């Protein structure tokens, strides 16, 4: 009973996060200007991170959590670097 409930909740969460990643990709590909693409990429990072956490809950191992942490840090660095590039025209001054 409880296992069925959690299994369905995990399946729904994975499906919804996958759709969310697709929508973020749509904005990153279609976005009319460069900042829209950067925002879509940042959202894609966060969504992929949450998808890894949910997959880790499903499988039951802590390894997915570490991958999610790497994705989170990489997303932060990538978005900051791209925003700096949009302001200055160069990343390292």
């Amino acid at each position, binding site marked *: 009973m409880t296992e069925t409930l959690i299994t369905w909740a995990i399946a729904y*969460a994975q499906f919804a996060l996958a759709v969310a990643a697709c929508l973020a990709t749509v*904005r990153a590909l279609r976005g009319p200007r460069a900042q829209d693409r950067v925002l879509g990429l*940042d*959202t894609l990072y*966060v969504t992929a991170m949450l998808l890894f*956490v949910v997959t880790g*809950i499903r499988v039951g191992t802590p390894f997915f959590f570490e991958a999610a942490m790497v994705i989170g840090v990489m997303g932060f660095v990538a*978005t900051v670097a791209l*925003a*700096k590039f949009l302001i200055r025209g160069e990343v390292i001054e």
Partner: protein
Amino acid sequence: MKHLADLPLWIGVPVALLLVIGATLTLLGTLGLVRLRSFYDRLHAPTLGTSWGAAATLLASMILFSWTEVRAAVHELVLGVLVMVTTPVTLMLLGRAALHRDRAEGHKDVPPAVARERETSGTDGRAGQGASPRPALQPDSPGIFMDR
């Protein structure tokens, strides 16, 4: 999924509820990212996923793994704090970049930059009176949107 086999109901119901809430909030945020009109509107939409979307998912993971493991699993807090600290920083930088680009291209619907008060003009009566050190805004300009 052997680790979910004998889970009590009072663990399973909050975990399932938090998972559904977190995933739904993230989906709504990306839906707003696609649907909203201007970039400054779209900048706010994904924060739905980074605030309670991430928090609910990580809370579900914490509750579940604290039950299945023998000890309390709180290492998700690191990821939660990371997301909550870095998201405002990145989105502020991105908003500033977009404002800078819009101003550089001469868009009419973004507020112009406020001129700073001259450093040499206000030296006589400033010290010791408790006057605000921030530059005075123009009377007809909304001050909160300004890029100082």
